[in-house]
């Protein structure tokens, strides 16, 4: 187990470093922050001096090494725009984004599992049809549309939920739905097909042959087996939600990393972009690691393989 974990961590580290290089390079292709930073009539000397101060005059690989070395020490540089440590800017926003991503994921799983299971058990049934239409809507409507419709209906019309902001449970319901609706379709599909495969399997047939009640077969025996492929995807979905949250964050005025990074890109605030993306990569690696660990809980065979 520890050896396996170590291996995964090392691989994750490679990914994180790779991601940081990629982001570092493309970010620098996207334009020069100096002109955004400096006053309109900045002299060429001032421009040169500022470049030197920010280290932007060095060759790219050198800049990257400096960045990487400092990052190892927890220093991701200062935001050009916010004039504060980029790390702090990102870390302050991170909890809200993680909370949103987790709730979005919980929403999608909470819909996908029952719908997927029931539509595998009774294809063409009520849940199957309704569930698929529901899932399809999430897949065909961009999050900003979903978000606005939710606000118009649940906040403005019904006044059940607050229209915006970060706070208690009631605040997170609509953002979580707006974020979590999109992957419902894909997750339902996974659960449904995994359930169909499991329900076709020998051990389920044996359970039936031994008189196991159907609800027991479906919700206890088969679901746990079907959870494995869903789990595999959850790590990837979690990362996608972290990264894709900016639309929802904007719509619901949610104080998260997504918006911060988007604005940082617009203002070529490289340290913030780098720190933001790096932390999302780290979360991606960590969430995949968690998924790997969760496998072991759900599937004892995998436990043994390590």
């Amino acid at each position, binding site marked *: 187990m520890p*050896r396996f974990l170590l291996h995964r961590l090392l691989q994750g580290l490679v990914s994180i470093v790779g991601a940081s290089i990629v982001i570092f390079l493309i970010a620098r292709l996207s334009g020069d922050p100096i002109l955004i930073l400096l006053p309109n009539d900045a002299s060429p000397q001032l421009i040169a001096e500022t470049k030197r101060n920010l280290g932007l005059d060095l060759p790219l690989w050198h800049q990257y090494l400096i960045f990487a070395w400092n990052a190892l020490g927890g220093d991701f540089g200062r935001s050009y725009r916010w004039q504060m440590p980029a790390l702090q800017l990102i870390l302050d926003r991170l909890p809200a984004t993680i909370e949103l991503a987790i709730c979005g994921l919980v929403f999608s799983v909470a819909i996908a599992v029952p719908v997927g299971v029931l539509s595998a058990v009774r294809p063409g049934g009520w849940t199957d049809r309704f569930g698929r239409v529901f899932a399809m809507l999430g897949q065909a409507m961009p999050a900003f549309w979903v978000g606005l419709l939710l606000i118009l209906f649940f906040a403005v019309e019904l006044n059940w939920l607050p229209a915006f902001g970060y706070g208690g449970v009631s605040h997170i319901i609509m953002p979580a739905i707006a974020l979590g609706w999109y992957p419902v379709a894909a997750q339902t599909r996974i659960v449904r097909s995994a359930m169909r495969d499991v329900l076709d399997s020998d051990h389920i047939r044996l359970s039936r042959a031994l008189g196991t009640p159907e609800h027991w077969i479906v919700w206890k025996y088969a679901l746990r087996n079907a959870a494995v492929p869903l789990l595999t995807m959850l790590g990837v979905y979690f990362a996608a939600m972290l990264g894709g949250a900016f639309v929802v964050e904007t719509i619901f005025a949610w104080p998260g990393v997504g918006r911060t990074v988007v604005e940082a890109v617009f203002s070529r605030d490289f340290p913030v972009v780098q720190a933001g993306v790096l932390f999302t990569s780290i979360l991606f690696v960590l969430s995949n690691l968690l998924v790997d660990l969760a496998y072991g809980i759900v599937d004892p065979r995998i436990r043994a*393989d390590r």
Partner: protein
Amino acid sequence: MLEADAITKHYRTSRGTVRAVEGVSFSLPKRGTLALVGESGCGKTTIAKMVLLLERPSGGAIRFEGQDIATMPRLALKAYRRRVQAVFQDPYASLNPRLRVGRIIAEPILAHERPGRAALDKRIAEVLDIVGLPAAAARLYPHEFSGGQRQRIAIARALAPRPELMVLDEPVSALDVSIRAQVLNLLQDIQDEYGLTYLIIAHDLALVQHFSSSVAVIYLGRVAEAGPTGPVFADPRHPYTQALLAAVPLPDPDHVLSEAAAAGEIASALHPPSGCAFHPRCPHAFAACPASVPPPHAVADGHIAACHLLQETHA
């Protein structure tokens, strides 16, 4: 013609080293049929894969006409690939579902020579005829055939480049009884007609006895007993061979099966027992068995068995 000299194959996995094959030697004369017999996981398929160059031995050498196939010059290797062909167990997995039968059969030919279109078609028709299929079969896809017919196609494909050695990996175990007899007969006919040499991998002892001229019984990567089929089956000297033979249920209600011959189950190649790997299951095990690996012992001409009991009695 084919000789294995103390070949070993170890796989390194996260849980440790799997000793799939541990120093197996055998030799296969031209036109002979050698059967590798053993229970699942004993390493017989790995040996076949090494002969087919699908795996590289970790140690030892496989020699074809005296030449080590691992160090063969390019040209000889190319020839080797033509001269050695294979038929695998599953007739459903061994034919590419996207290719027509004619193309499937043509492939091994085209890998080695460039006959003209007409010559190629003729060769295809020929081999199809040998396996008892009409020439028209070349235009169809594999899924249009039954299991037995597919295995015939697989045989035709293997025959197409005119090989000299055929590796048959459980060639009939996926087939029904009535079809099995057809395919076995076909394989024998082909051998007789074209003077082929067979290396057959099987777990069905009755089939092996029926089909092969010599046999090597493998247990956990080592040869337990080997020799000409008749003497080995008539007078098995290794307790494992004895147990195997005793365990075969015969289509005879008067035959009584003996459960006692081999207790327990085959150990894992990951943690093989010390000394003679069979000792935990052996009814005759004694002190020497866990202590050291028994060397092969010649009990008769060409008949060897690796058992400490034989050492004791003959010492």
